Each structure stands twice: as structure tokens, then as C-alpha cells.
């Protein structure tokens, strides 16, 4: 097992290097660069640039070098100094831009993740144990609806309903008052209240698909012979559900968790924009649009690292969960 994890960790480094190369290549592919889009947006507002100004800007950002030299410098900076480059948009280092929103993003996403599993596991189990009952139909209906409805649409609808009901607009996680006076403990209840809408909206789609998975898996497992053996042995229904069926049904749920780390880091993008959440997703979108390449590249690369780490973690969890996987790895 340890050897296996070591092997996976060694593979980790070349994987990340290749990914970073591809990311950088793709990000610089569109014609033009940050200066082009910067000049274009300022020209639209009436500013005048001479070719000398543009050349000066380009030179100062190091954009005249061929892209692979830029890539090499960027990677060298990351490895030797832990410097992820400079964000043109924000006019400061990429790392400080990311750190700005890191804790909030992680907090919000983590709570959403907990919410998803806390709701979907029990509901999935209930639906499987009461297949074709009224409760099962109701949850299945909600499940399909939640999976099929785009999050941003749900976000708008929920905010509209909340406005109708309370007369308050809950946009973003912080009220203007909070932003003006700075955070203090007295705002905590309101902050938590403001978290509810994003929690519900972003949590729903994930929750619904996990419910479907758990239900289908549980039904599969309950139809298997070993369930009958356990019953014939005198096991209670609770033992059959939790000790036997659920343990086997968890496999796809655990492998589905591979992406969660990344979700925790970046949060959702479109819904975050609709709900004006100060999390990482919208930053990436803006960086890509204005060709703020070091910021975009760093965010995507961190996401890649997290996806790869998530996969490794979920594989380890699977091996811990399922003895068949554990043993095939040994051989």
C-alpha cells in the first residue's frame, strides 16, 4: 500500500508539469495579449495610446518574449522562489490575489460539500429502502428537477422568491453595512443567513445527483445474493442496510469525491457571479477574459493539482473501503 502511494506521488510531478505546459500554451493561444485587451478597453473610453506607450507596456510585462520563454520563466519563478507571477488586472502578485478569496471560497465550498453528503446519503438510503413509495417518488421528482435545473436559474428564482417574501435583497455574502464597518461578531447571524441561499442553490444539483447514485447503488446491492445470505443468517434489516448494502454502495460515491477538493478551492463560477459571491470562480473567468495569463494559469494549475490529489485520495479511500481493490494493488 505504501509503495503504491509512493509510486502515485512520483507520477504526480511529471503529470503536473505536463498539465502546466498545456495550460500555458492554451491560455496564450488567443491572438493578442493582456496589453492588447487593456489598450482596447481603455481606448473605448477615449484614452489615446501611442505605439511607444504600447511597446513600453509590453516590454515592462515581458510579453515580447516567445511564449515558451515566458512559460520557462514562470515555472522557474514558481519552483525557485514560489513566485506565481504578476497579475496585470490587479497590479500585484498572483498569490496575494488568490489568497484574498481563498478562505472564504474554502469555507463556503466546504459547507456546501458537507451539506450535499449530509442530505443525499440518508435520502438515497431512504429511497432505496422504500422503493416506489410516495416518499421515493417525491424525492426522485425533486432529484430530477434539481439535476435538470441550471444553478444560475435556480439562483435567480430563489433570490426573487426571497425578495418577494422578505422585501430584502440578499446579494452576496456581505451586506453594505458589513463592508463599511468591517466584520465583527454581531454580523455573524446575518452572514450565516446570507450563506443559506448559495448553500441551497449550489448544493442542490450535487445533492440530487448523489441521491440518484446512492439509491441506484443501494438497490443493486440489495438485490445481490449476499443480502439474502445475511437475512437467512438472522441479521436485522438495519445490519443488512448499513453493514452490507451501504458499504458496497459507497464505491462510486467515494470515487465521485475526487473532484471535491477542486470544488472546495474554486467554488462555482456562473452561480457565484449571479449571486455576487466573492469566491474564486469569477476571478478565473475575469482573468481569462482579459488575458491576465499568470493569474489564470496559476488558478487552473492549482485546480489541476487539486484534481490529481483528489483522485489519489479517493483511490486510497477506495482501497481502504474495498478489500478487492486493496489486494489487486498489492499484486
Amino acid at each position: 500500500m505504501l509503495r503504491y502511494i509512493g509510486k502515485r506521488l512520483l507520477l504526480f510531478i511529471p503529470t503536473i508539469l505536463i498539465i502546466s505546459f498545456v495550460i500555458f500554451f492554451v491560455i496564450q493561444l488567443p491572438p493578442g495579449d493582456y496589453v492588447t485587451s487593456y489598450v482596447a478597453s481603455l481606448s473605448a473610453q477615449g484614452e489615446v495610446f501611442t505605439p511607444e506607450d504600447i511597446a513600453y507596456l509590453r516590454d515592462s510585462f515581458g510579453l515580447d518574449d516567445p511564449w515558451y520563454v515566458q512559460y520557462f520563466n514562470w515555472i522557474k519563478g514558481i519552483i525557485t522562489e514560489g513566485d506565481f507571477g504578476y497579475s496585470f488586472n490587479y497590479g500585484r502578485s498572483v498569490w496575494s490575489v488568490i489568497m484574498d478569496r481563498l478562505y472564504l471560497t474554502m469555507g463556503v465550498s466546504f459547507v456546501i460539500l458537507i451539506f450535499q453528503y449530509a442530505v443525499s446519503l440518508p435520502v438515497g438510503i431512504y429511497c432505496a429502502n422504500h422503493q416506489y413509495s410516495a416518499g421515493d417518488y417525491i424525492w426522485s421528482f425533486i432529484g430530477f428537477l434539481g439535476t435538470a435545473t441550471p444553478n444560475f436559474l435556480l439562483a435567480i428564482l430563489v433570490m426573487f422568491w426571497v425578495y418577494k417574501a422578505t422585501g430584502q435583497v440578499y446579494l452576496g455574502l456581505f451586506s453594505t453595512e458589513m463592508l463599511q464597518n468591517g466584520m465583527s461578531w454581531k454580523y455573524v447571524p446575518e452572514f450565516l443567513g446570507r450563506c443559506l441561499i448559495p448553500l441551497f442553490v449550489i448544493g442542490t444539483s450535487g445533492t440530487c445527483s448523489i441521491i440518484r447514485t446512492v439509491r441506484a447503488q443501494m438497490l443493486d446491492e440489495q438485490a445481490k445474493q449476499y443480502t439474502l445470505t445475511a437475512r437467512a443468517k438472522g441479521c436485522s434489516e438495519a445490519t443488512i442496510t448499513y453493514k452490507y448494502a451501504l458499504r458496497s454502495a459507497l464505491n462510486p460515491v467515494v470515487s465521485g469525491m475526487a473532484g471535491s477538493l477542486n470544488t472546495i478551492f474554486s467554488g462555482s463560477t456562473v452561480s457565484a457571479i449571479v449571486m455576487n459571491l466573492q469566491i474564486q470562480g469569477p476571478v478565473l473567468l475575469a482573468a481569462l477574459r482579459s488575458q491576465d495569463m499568470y493569474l489564470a494559469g496559476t488558478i487552473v494549475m492549482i485546480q489541476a493539482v487539486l484534481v490529481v490529489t483528489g483522485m489519489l485520495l479517493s483511490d486510497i479511500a477506495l482501497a481502504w473501503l474495498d478489500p478487492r481493490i486493496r489486494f489487486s494493488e498489492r499484486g
Partner: protein
Amino acid sequence: MEQDVKQNVTDDTIIKVRDLRINIKVDEGTLTAVRGVDFEIKKGETLGLVGESGCGKSLTSKAILGINDKKCKASGEIIFDADGMGPVNLLDLNPRGKEIRSVRGKQISMIFQEPMVAFSPMYTIGDQINEATRLHITKDKKESKKISLEVMKKVGIANAEKRYNQYPHEFSGGMLQRALIAMALVCNPKLLIADEPTTALDVTIQAQILEIMKELQKDFGMSILFITHDLGVVAGMCDRVAVMYLGRVVETAPAAELYAHPMHPYTQGLLGSVHKIGTKNQDRLFSIEGTVPLALNLPAGCGFYERCSKRIEGVCNAYDPELVDVGGEHKIACFACTGCPNAKKEGKADE
């Protein structure tokens, strides 16, 4: 009622099944898979329940433990002299309740057709055998492990201590069947139901497993309900045989008697289709024409009518024969063998 029930079980009868019917709800209507099955098993006896796929033998055996699918509704009587409860109709017990669970695995246990899927792949063999011990005998961990290991050794699992901590996928099919038998016998049950226990195993392993079962029966003194479609296996294992066709017992007799004098055309057909080593049989094996009809909206009359070589038109397709004692514990349900239905039966059919 209580009195009646008690009279039904005589001293040496372990279990008595009377008029067992099982209906299964399907989209097209109600399928009557078991249509009034009667049999009883005496102490220490092995009863073979024989029939082809779909005749209801597995459903019958699972009905005893109450572990059939929820779609199956069983009616009739399965009288079992349960420890601590006295004679009870197992069908009256809540299939998820405590009482039936104290019978399952402890007083009546079951082994299954495919040992490879009968264990959960997630837990060690030892854990799964020990679960039965812990449920029914002792909660003490050391004590229960000792008991489980003992039984594992008894069924011929070499290196039991090491095997105890192994997972099902590290076992061969034959070893798994031994483990399954160990799990079934660990609580010293009165009745062991063996649902085609050797069908999924190759022939040499089959012989070993049957040998072990016979030895253990001597050791433990339990009765066995042996379900199979293989008449060759029955001959070596069973004291008595009940032949099932389309949800009914059509013939029952002591094993030797049945092989010597099969009477029902279906039994004769079954025996004719067994290949005998040593006979210079140049001809093809005998086969029964046709297939088992679907037990949905069955026409009146004997279920075997369509395929029977001795059918009597106007009788066999009008009345359903009942089991009639022809002497020497040999019972048979066939008009062609026992004569035409009498007036009483006619009256019954008219109802």
C-alpha cells in the same frame, strides 16, 4: 387454534408444510408460482425436493425462512417447532420481526446455489461466519471466534486461523461452499435448507461437498431439505424425495422406492433423462416434450397435461389431481396412475 397447531407436529416431525401457496404480483397479473405444496420432514431425515427450473422449489424453501421478495405473498401453513416459542406457523411471523430472526440462522439455516456471490466481498469470511455465532450464541468475542473456527475446521477448511482473516475473493468456489456450510451449521440448526448447493461447482468438488454434508448430518443430527434438479445427486443424499412440477408436489416416496418404481409420467420422464454410466445406450437421452407453462392464468386441470404421454382427455384437463397415497409412503398426484377422479372431486372442482 393453538391446540390444532400443536397436534400438527408429532414428536419426530421437524417441519410440516401444508397447502403452501405463493403468489407473485407481476405486471400482467398474479402469478401463482407455488400452488398448494405439502410435505413434512422428520428429525434427522433428508428430503430431496426435485424439479426443473421455475417449478417453485426455491420459492418454497425461502418461504420457510420468510426471505422471499416482498412481491411474493405466501399463504398456507409452515408449522415449525421453534425453541422458545413452541410450534408456530412461520408464515404468521413478521418477516422483519425478532421472532423469525431468532429462527433464521439458528434453528433453520440455509446454504445457497452460488457460494461465490453468497458472501459480501467487503468483509472477511471469518467476520461473516462469526456474525451468525455472535447473533445467536454468544456476544463474547473470544468465545464466538473459537466456536466459529471449530466449525470451519469441521467442514474441512485447512489452515482455518489464516483463512478466518481472508476475504471471499481469496477463496475457491468449493472452499466458499464449505465456508457457507460452516456459517449455516455454526449454531447447530434443526433444519438445513440446501438450495442446489453443488450446482455451481465442478463435479469433483460436488462429490466432496456432498460427502461433507452427509458426515456433518451424522455429527449434528440435523434434518436437511435438499433442493436440486439433479436426480443423480438426490440418489446419494436423500431418504425421501418429493418431485415438484409447476408449483405442486406431483409425487413423493422414499428415495429407493421412487427410483425403483417411478409412477408419475413426469418422474418417469425425469429419470429417463438421467444418463447412466455403463449402459450401452446408443440412443439419445430421453427428453420430456415441451416446456413448463407460465404459471399465469393457468387452465383448469393437471399442470403436466400438455406434456404428458398418458393424459386422459376430458379428465386430466378438467380436474387437478391431488396427492393420493398408493401405499408404502408413496404418494402420487396423477389420474392416469390412481384412477379417475371420484364424485367428491367432481363436486370440489365445481365450486
